[in-house]
């Protein structure tokens, strides 16, 4: 299935998500036709059960969808929809169609009936029909399905790449559905899942960046020959290739090792590795491109601005490094190597981003 998903989404995004299309989305347009195409081709609900119209794809299969979303800078909350529906299914609420997003950073008060407070940094919050969030702590925590339309106010914001990151403010609003957070899942499950998904998107964007940059270096001539002929350029592109390879495998490991319970230890490592590759890779891409890469007209920034945004979303490299490092030190030196060989079995406790209201 993985190959089929990959070829389907790459064809779709290649056809629709052209640079002009992405620029229009960055200017505020909702990418309705792209969303419909993803829906019609079974991408949006790929992870959902067959009864809900899905294909029950595992995270290891969904990896290629998330990576392609990054590679083509897809200007829609595709990965958020995959994760939101995964949690709705786990909680027994059931996957939904429509435009669905997630919120990890929240300050909510819920009395079991009406909801008040705010959801922050919600991807495409202004365009979404549904938003999934987790409220409460410990045994009291619950999965909520909310409607942005029920928000009293939406404060629009965008990240560096012009992707909507909105704040939804609710006052005694209706909750569409709710269920206790399933056993074995942490209140931070959406944050952890979000980090995993951003890792795959960064791996995809880096892959596109590497292709664009080596193509440019082969075409662009200075001093009478392609700049790719110069060792100084070759050495930079070699580092870019290494970082792209590292990002791809780090992200893939996070997905493949996640099944019912997201593998937080591997996801942390994946987010750190991809975030650091993003910083290095974006720098090399611009360095090799020179002034043309700094223009709005050229397409490099469609990738680099996303890398600069995504590396920090759902926990920066520092956020995840501190967690991972504290875990490793607490476990002691004698347990360090066994943790490396059995990363999947490590129980990393991830705090939530939200705060109580």
């Amino acid at each position, binding site marked *: 299935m993985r190959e089929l998903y990959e070829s389907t989404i790459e064809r779709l995004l290649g056809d629709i998500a052209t640079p002009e299309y992405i620029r229009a989305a960055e200017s505020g347009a909702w990418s309705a036709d792209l969303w419909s195409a993803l829906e019609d081709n079974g991408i949006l609900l790929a992870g959902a059960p067959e009864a809900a119209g899905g294909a029950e794809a595992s995270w290891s299969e969904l990896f290629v969808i998330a990576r392609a979303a990054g590679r083509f800078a897809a200007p829609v909350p595709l990965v958020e929809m995959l994760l939101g529906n995964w949690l709705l299914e786990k909680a027994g609420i059931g996957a939904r169609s429509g435009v669905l997003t997630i919120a990890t950073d929240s300050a909510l008060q819920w009395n079991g009936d009406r909801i008040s407070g705010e959801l922050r940094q919600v991807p495409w919050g202004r365009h979404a029909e549904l938003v999934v969030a987790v409220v409460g702590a410990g045994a009291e925590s619950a999965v909520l399905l909310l409607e942005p339309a029920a928000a009293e106010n939406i404060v629009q914001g965008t990240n560096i790449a012009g992707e909507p990151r909105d704040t939804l403010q609710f006052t005694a609003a209706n909750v569409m559905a709710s269920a206790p957070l399933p056993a074995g899942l942490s209140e931070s499950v959406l944050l952890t899942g979000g980090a995993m998904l951003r890792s795959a998107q960064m791996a995809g964007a880096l892959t596109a960046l590497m292709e664009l940059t*080596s193509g440019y270096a082969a075409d662009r001539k200075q001093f009478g020959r392609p700049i790719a002929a110069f060792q100084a350029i070759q050495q930079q592109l070699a580092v870019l*290739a*290494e970082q792209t390879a590292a990002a791809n495998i*780090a992200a893939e490991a996070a997905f493949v090792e996640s099944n019912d319970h997201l593998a937080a230890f591997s996801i*942390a*490592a994946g987010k*750190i590795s991809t975030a650091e590759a993003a910083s290095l890779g974006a720098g090399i891409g611009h360095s090799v491109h020179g002034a043309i890469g700094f223009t709005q007209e050229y397409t490099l920034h469609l990738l680099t601005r996303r890398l600069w945004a995504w590396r920090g979303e759902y926990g920066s490299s520092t956020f995840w490094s501190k967690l991972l*490092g504290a875990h*490793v030190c607490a476990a002691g030196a004698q347990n360090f190597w066994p*943790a490396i060989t059995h990363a999947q079995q490590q129980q990393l406790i991830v705090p939530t981003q939200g705060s109580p209201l």
Partner: protein
Amino acid sequence: MSISQFNYSTIPSEAEALRADVRAFIEQTLQDYPAVKRAYSWMGFDAEFSRLLGQKGWLGMALPKRYGGAEASPFARYVIIEELLAAGAPVSAHWIADRQSAPLILRFGTEAQKEKYLPPICRGESYFCIGMSEPNSGSDLASIKSNAQRVDNGWLVNGQKVWTTNAQHSHYMIALLRTGNKEESGRHGGMSQFIIDLSLPGVTIRPIADLAGGEHFNEVFLDNVRLDADALVGEEGNGWGQVTAELAFERSGPERFLSSIALLHTAIKAIGPEPDALQAREIGRITARLLTLRNMSLAVTRQLSDGENPAWAASCVKDLGNVFEQDLPEIVQVLVEEQPQVGGGSDHAQVLAYLTQMAPSFSLRGGTREILRGIIARGLGLR
């Protein structure tokens, strides 16, 4: 050559099943082995330990059973060597023979050569070194001048090799020698590989002290060394191709990113269970980089296991891995307020002192950083 060579691969269960045994063996055998010696990594020499590994059946594992091997997958060997390296076990005696020489002889050697050389390698009794670099041929390996000339029933070898790791402890050297004229056979032609018995008359080995006073590498003088006809490995004139194939085995293994792991162990001990924010962040970053490098290395092992040629991907692993193992002493020395110390001092201080001084060699041995990046760029179609 592309990023798609790096596919996440797990260790098959039959190989993974070896891990508990080798861990228990190491724990028992190296109970009192000091931290500073663990820092020697694959430069730590102990023939007795190598023989013990041979008895366990953990050397030459991928070789056919008739030569003493286990016909195991490359993953089985991977599990064994990563456990040995992570523990800092003294593996240097058999290291080159097990990693490089045995696969080379298996692939290019005659039946008689396989029968002669492979069983003692599997027993941990026969040690090899690699004769590539020369005083005027380092990164530009194709410019070697040491040569073998055909004489009655054999070869006559003259020249000099340098930076030959472990030559003083080895029984044999697999040497790359010029057998043809560079002008006639092209830049990469006219070279052949030979197995040189280092006890032969005309071989002189002189250790070269490194900057910390250790003696790992050597000068090897070859003065009218008379070799039998069967000393040639593989095809005459095909030395360059054979060496290039050999490097895929050499460049992707865990020894390319675990050289400083002893320091990580002492640092975590020195930091204790409650790191400050900076220590937690740096240890976390290191952990992530190590996990990712291991996943890359396993992806290359998968390709070796599938019979593909992962030379390009292996270069990526080596370069990234060398940067990592060189970064460790640099990161740790500003993370823990403990000065490196050569004589006396804590385990951590001694390991830090040793690895700080050894780190420059990590990106020299097996191909320099610049050469590797050049290979990677060529794979990208840039050269």
